């Protein structure tokens, strides 16, 4: 494959991914509203379009047409840039995620991921994909910290400081919980981690790799990283008005919102890739004959089913659990999750050393 073809395919993939992702984010918002409404025994949005399906369109139009207020003494460059930083970083982390195997169209082999680098002859997956995603999580604190400070309002500043402290505390547990998976896969590349889980459902890291503790640590740390219930103290209306995005209106607020839901999608994708076999079907090793046409689509289908399930769990937890108090939140991150993740690393490496 030549450089020109690589660039063309990359541009097509980026455009497609952006379109699908932003539409999906809008409809995840609708899904959240309807699912939580059903859990609270009410309907949710039903008026706009059949079953409220055009509600995201109405919301988008509202956000674009709303008045864009900038507070008087806000530090303008950072005030405008902070939501953009948040959104850009969450989109970059999604671009690193492989969505399936390779597609063979004609004589082109196209891996289903947006970020792959072009060696002289072909396309290769990034060797350190997981580490880059962790790095983006680390740098993502700036979107929150700078937005609260630049709004020049005490609620925003307090909310952003709390949110940043929460984010950097749970990053540690997040990173350490993934080390067990890395020990099994032997590589930081996401595609190789998924390939190491091929075979059958028992090879998945959650079941056969016994990484269920690591999975729960990861899920809890990820809920804290995305500021979702039960860790959403920085955004709770009863606590800090709206935390770091108090002073934002219209499109900037929409960008924060989109960034949060894109982060949710990234967390769901990572959970499937690292713990649940990625795009491998759970019926894989059972010897069921499948037609070839299904083999081309099945990775995407199973991947999206799993992501949908994890996002549903996100929304389910939001509708069910109360939120942590701030000191409970920090104590939980440092005094419980961190020692538990280190213990998981020790036990996993012990078991692996005994096996070989």
């Amino acid at each position, binding site marked *: 494959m030549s450089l020109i073809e690589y660039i063309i395919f990359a541009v097509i993939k980026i455009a497609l991914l952006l379109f699908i992702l932003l539409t999906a984010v809008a409809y995840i918002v609708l899904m959240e509203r309807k699912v939580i409404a059903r859990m609270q025994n009410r309907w949710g949005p039903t008026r706009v379009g059949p079953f409220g399906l055009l509600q995201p369109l109405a919301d988008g139009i509202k956000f674009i047409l709303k008045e864009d207020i900038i507070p008087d003494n806000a*530090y303008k460059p*950072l005030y405008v840039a902070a939501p953009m930083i948040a959104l850009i970083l969450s989109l970059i982390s999604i671009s690193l995620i492989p969505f399936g195997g390779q597609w063979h169209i004609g004589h082109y082999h196209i891996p289903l991921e947006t970020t792959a680098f072009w060696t002289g002859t072909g396309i290769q997956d990034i*060797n*350190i994909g997981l*580490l*880059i995603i*962790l*790095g983006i*999580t*680390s*740098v993502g*604190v*700036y979107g929150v*910290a*700078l937005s*609260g*400070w630049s709004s020049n309002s005490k609620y925003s*500043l307090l909310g*952003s*400081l709390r949110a*940043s402290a929460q984010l*950097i505390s749970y*990053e540690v547990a997040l990173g350490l919980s993934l080390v067990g998976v890395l020990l099994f896969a*032997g*590589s*930081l590349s996401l595609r190789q981690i998924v390939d190491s889980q091929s075979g059958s459902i028992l090879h998945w890291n959650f079941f056969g790799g016994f990484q269920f503790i690591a999975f729960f640590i990861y899920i809890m740390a990820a809920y804290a990283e995305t500021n979702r219930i039960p860790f959403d103290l920085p955004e709770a209306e009863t606590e800090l008005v709206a935390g770091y995005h108090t002073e934002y209106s219209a499109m900037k607020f929409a960008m924060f919102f989109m960034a949060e839901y894109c982060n949710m999608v990234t967390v769901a994708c990572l959970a499937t890739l690292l713990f649940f076999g990625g795009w491998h079907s759970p019926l894989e090793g059972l010897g069921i004959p499948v037609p070839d046409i299904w083999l081309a689509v099945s990775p995407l289908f199973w991947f999206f089913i799993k992501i949908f399930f994890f996002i549903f769990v996100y929304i389910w937890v939001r509708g069910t659990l109360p939120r942590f108090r701030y000191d409970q939140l920090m104590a939980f991150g440092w005094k419980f999750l961190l020692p538990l993740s280190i213990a998981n690393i020790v036990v996993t490496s012990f078991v692996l050393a005994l096996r070989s």
Partner: protein
Amino acid sequence: MLHTILFLIFAGVCVAGALNFLLQHHPVNSALSLIVVMGSLALLFLMLGAEFVAAVQVIVYAGAVMVLFVFVIMLLNAGVEARSGGSKVAVVLGVPGLIIFFGLMYWILSAPRSQLENVQIGDFYVPTQDLGIALFREFLLPFEVTSVLVLIAIMGAVVLARRERP
């Protein structure tokens, strides 16, 4: 050739960020310029092929150390710096320092071409596994000593931030 061009671009960004860091009046702008410097250093590492070091540079420096800098600036509500009237010491030490610096640069850059453009992109590529093995076999003692150092720093921070009991 490609390596030289990319190096000049990223090193230019790095130096521009560093100069901006010195010349800005508001501490937050300086902190952001320093983040740009850290990022461009990570890119330079990546160009040499040290991918793990590049990622860790972003995670540790740009993602943790600079976050703490920004925290401090936000908490102390540091505003625009007051302008001082200039300092004699800066001129007395600075002008000869600059002359020496540029002299050194000229001397280094006037070396024959073959000595300068020896590096290709990805020359120092090390798979993460080999890095880990080297770190825990040959360099185990420095690794343990560094972790003790970090532990001392943590203990110092805890002691300094402790509230006095009445």
